[in-house]
């Protein structure tokens, strides 16, 4: 018998992953005003890197150390992937029209998806278990060790990110660039470098999400980035695209609503709920919960 509390816990776990991916969307939009369609696919690559890494470590006992190593490896790999994508595909079109940027992003996304099917094979793979599994029972709610890991690691990463953005020089520079790229350049900030760091960070977080989801729902396939990416994107918009705490808030809200809808309504609406929320947000409050309205100067 699943109680409301159980639903919320499940929702938080799912929502943390959405939040990790949403952070990447929101940070890139913040500095570049680009909706990085390919971001969901970076998440997918992260999951696969994690998969192959954990296969390498197969044979050893599942332990937290090996889980840690796998996650770090995936994060590093995707950080590099993010840098490459930014340098090769997005930087050449940085000054182009919105539509051009959008189509370029779509092109990269399609490339990763189809390339993934080619390289990894289109059939789903099963993530081996990385960390020892146990259940907690607290107040009638079942908490799996995977869920604790997901929520715990996500929380840790988000705290680290917040610290980075608020307290470090690079983080300050990122915020400056997201306000006004040209002004930041005039202040001597190396905008190319900041944008690269933003991509690397966002991609690393997405990769972490990919490994975490692999730990929770062991099935991964090359097209998993599409639906997860889309929902994470909705989460970013819901929270206010460009707004970092907003991405976290949005992710958790989307996660919880999805679990609630499936639990109390029906699972056929699992994916539709995200679209529904998206449309409501865009029609009623396009700047999202924590976003600010951008007025054009006349």
């Amino acid at each position, binding site marked *: 018998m699943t109680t409301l509390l159980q639903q919320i816990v499940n929702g938080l776990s799912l929502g943390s992953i959405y939040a990790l991916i949403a952070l990447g969307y929101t940070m890139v939009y913040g500095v570049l005003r680009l909706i990085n369609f390919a971001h969901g696919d970076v998440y997918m690559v992260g999951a696969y890197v994690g998969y192959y890494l954990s296969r390498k470590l197969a044979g050893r006992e599942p332990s937290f150390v090996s889980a840690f190593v796998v996650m770090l490896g995936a994060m590093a790999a995707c950080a590099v992937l993010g840098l490459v994508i930014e340098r090769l595909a997005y930087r050449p079109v940085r000054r182009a029209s919105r*539509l051009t940027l959008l189509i370029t992003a779509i092109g990269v996304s399609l*490339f990763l998806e189809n390339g993934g099917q080619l390289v990894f094979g289109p059939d789903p793979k099963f993530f081996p278990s990385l960390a020892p599994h146990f259940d907690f029972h607290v107040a009638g709610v079942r908490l799996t060790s995977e869920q604790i890991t997901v929520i715990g690691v996500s929380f840790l990463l988000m705290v680290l990110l917040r610290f980075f953005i608020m307290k470090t020089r690079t983080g300050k520079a990122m915020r400056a660039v997201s306000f006004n790229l040209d002004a930041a350049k005039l202040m001597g900030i190396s905008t190319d470098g900041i944008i690269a760091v933003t991509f690397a960070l966002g991609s690393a977080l997405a990769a972490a999400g990919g490994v975490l989801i692999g730990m929770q729902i062991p099935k991964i396939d090359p097209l998993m980035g599409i639906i997860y990416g889309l929902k994470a994107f909705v989460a970013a*918009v819901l929270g206010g695209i460009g707004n970092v705490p907003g991405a976290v808030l949005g992710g958790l809200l989307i996660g919880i609503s999805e679990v609630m809808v499936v639990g109390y309504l029906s699972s056929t609406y699992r994916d539709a709920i995200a679209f529904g929320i*998206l449309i409501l947000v*865009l029609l009623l409050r396009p700047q999202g919960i924590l976003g600010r309205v951008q007025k054009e100067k006349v």
Partner: protein
Amino acid sequence: MKGFLLAVAVVAVLFAANALFTGALGAGLAMSPYLLQVICLAGINIILAVSLNLINGFTGQFSIGHAGFMAIGAYTSAYMTVNFGDRVQSVLSFLPSAARDGAVLLISLAAGALLAAIAGFFVGVPSLRLRGDYLAIVTLGFGEIIRVFILNIDAVGGARGFSGIPKIASFFWIYLFAALSIVVVYRIVHSSFGRTLIAIREDEIAAEAMGVDTTRSKVISFVVSSAMAGTGGGLFGHYLMYLHTNSFTFLKSIEIIIMIVIGGLGSITGSVVGAVLYISLTEGLREFAQYRMVLFSLMLVIIMIVRPQGILGHREVASFLTRRRRLPTVPSAPL
């Protein structure tokens, strides 16, 4: 008078071509069914591309939900034909079979276009207030919602798909409507109303300041564009005889966007070129099987980097034919 004669000539040519390609003039002269299918699908693409260009290229509104309206048109018209086609046929029994089929097709297409137009209105009014990326995302969302909605309607097949649609759309009808869409969009663009659309694209605030009711213009062009997409969808269903919502995903909307971007936004000729080029590319790369999409997506990125304005940019074929006058810079003339 001149226009009327031209129209008659076009219809006659299409009619003759259709007879030729389908083998009515002799089986030896017929075109291979595969090639004919590609050409017909290209014709439907032309309708979709030209109509999307009206809203994206000429009005500058970033819409990526076109597949949704295509789906509405496709399913509505297919439903009409399958459920009421026989009745219409019997009422018109005095006409030859081809004419009867044509009448059924026209009525069904009209129904599909009408419903697509209505949907376009209800999507357009709230969405067109938004700018840029937001509009893109909202139209994408609506496109998906329409698709999921149709997927859940059992009367049109649901997840099994809608089969049993009679093949009453032929090369003739497809290209007749393709020609019609080109003419309609051309006339819209070269009218006073069309100027307001381009003005909105260039600077919406200034357009509003010059007395243009920008909401009205945007919604009207959106509705017209959706109706045309619905017509394309209707022809699609009556040609392939089977419909499934998998043909109308967000990917389909993206395909149409790619067509108009490759051809050149804001150029009708460009949309035609883009539509034909796109299907040639996808068919041409078919032999590369799994590598096809990878190559294609790579090409897409490269084109965006190298020539984002597409092949024709904002120009039409006609502008290449007239001699480009080089004007001297205009001096600040003394009074």
